[in-house]
């Protein structure tokens, strides 16, 4: 009897991979999603959102146009240490920032045509991330702007990218 129940349990799990059901969403379900883990890690390749940003120094005269830097890729890379098995705060913080960009991309995908992205919490947090990141590179920068680009990589590296959104100019001070 117990064997049959276990078998049934794992068969039901397999069935959930084949038969897709409606996705239920809601603010509390999002915040408490840890109670409903799907255990799908690194399962699918495809387009991945990447964050690009650029900065501008304050214009010398109010009528001057902003002079923008080149776009820079805001993407975490960290040196590897064995001790990080025990304490890896910096890397984990960088990973959660990358997750934030993925949440923004998902939120943008689900937005209605008349909605304003600036109202999204993920947008506001990414804006802060961009300003912090740009000011770490260029302390004097007063303006920033970012793009979310969907990047497709293959085993040999970059294949293609599409710009999903470009933000308005952000005041970084």
């Amino acid at each position: 009897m117990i064997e049959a129940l276990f078998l049934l349990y794992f068969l039901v799990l397999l069935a959930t991979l084949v038969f897709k059901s409606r996705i239920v969403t809601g603010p509390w379900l999002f915040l408490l999603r840890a109670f409903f883990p799907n255990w799908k890690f690194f399962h699918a390749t495809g387009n991945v959102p990447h964050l690009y940003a650029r900065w501008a120094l304050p214009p010398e005269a109010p009528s001057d146009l902003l002079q923008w830097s080149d776009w820079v890729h805001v993407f975490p890379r960290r040196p590897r240490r064995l001790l990080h098995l025990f304490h890896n705060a910096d890397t984990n913080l960088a990973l959660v920032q990358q997750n934030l960009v993925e949440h923004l991309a998902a939120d943008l995908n689900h937005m209605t045509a008349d909605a304003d992205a600036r109202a999204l919490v993920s947008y506001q947090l990414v804006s802060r991330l961009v300003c912090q990141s740009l000011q770490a590179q260029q302390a004097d920068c007063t303006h920033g702007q970012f793009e979310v680009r969907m990047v497709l990589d293959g085993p040999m590296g970059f294949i293609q990218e599409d710009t999903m959104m470009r933000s308005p100019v952000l005041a970084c001070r």
Partner: protein
Amino acid sequence: MPVSSAVRATEVLLALSMLLQTLEYLRMRQALTVQGLWAWPVQRADIPAGPVQKLLDLLFADRAMHGHLLLRLPVLLLLAWHGSDLALAVFLFASHVLMLIRWRGAFNGGSDFMTLVVLTGLVSAQLVQLGGDPDLAWRAGLWYICLQSITSYFMSGWVKLMQPEWRNGHAMTIFLNAAIYGPLSASSFLRRPWLARLGAWAFIGWECAAPLALLHPLVALVFCTIALLFHFLVFWFFGLNRFFWAWLATFPAILACSAQRVFW
């Protein structure tokens, strides 16, 4: 592994895992302040307006948050040293859920989920104990943790098996290239297609076969040993140190449940 030993091992490993998490949270607390990236005044818009939002405003104020994290340290040491009781288990459960909400549902994905699983097993066992047989209560708690852990490997393996990029080994190279310690060097041996395919199939096969660990304690021991190596590699290539400790805390449950020999 006897149930009592498995319970103690689970408590100690959970305490270690959460202690490491707490020390990391304390290290990054600047990011959670009003001036930091993850400022609560911005994030509170995630919470529907009402009394819960007001309560969270109090709990997530900078000083309260810092105090909460500091309080976790002695509680976790108590868990490791003395073992759990209902109050301690409920505090850690509530504390973990609060931290998940503070990080918009998850800080480190799967490791948060698995930590919650172990805490749920602990709280359930404590609650069931109130009504009667402690041995039955702990068996139920351990089986819950064990099943969730086995499910995590099983689902993770089968979902990969269904993806052609995993079956041909491409996915492994793509994910390693995009990892926080990446990209792979041009001459990396992991770029060899046959090796990527072999590695992918080895881990898919092992993950899909996870339920077999319940058949015999020896199979469970081999399974957990491979799992340890697997999680170390995940840490080494992707920086996910918390996964290592969160899943390690479930291994005593797997070993104890396999020893109950329910299938033969």
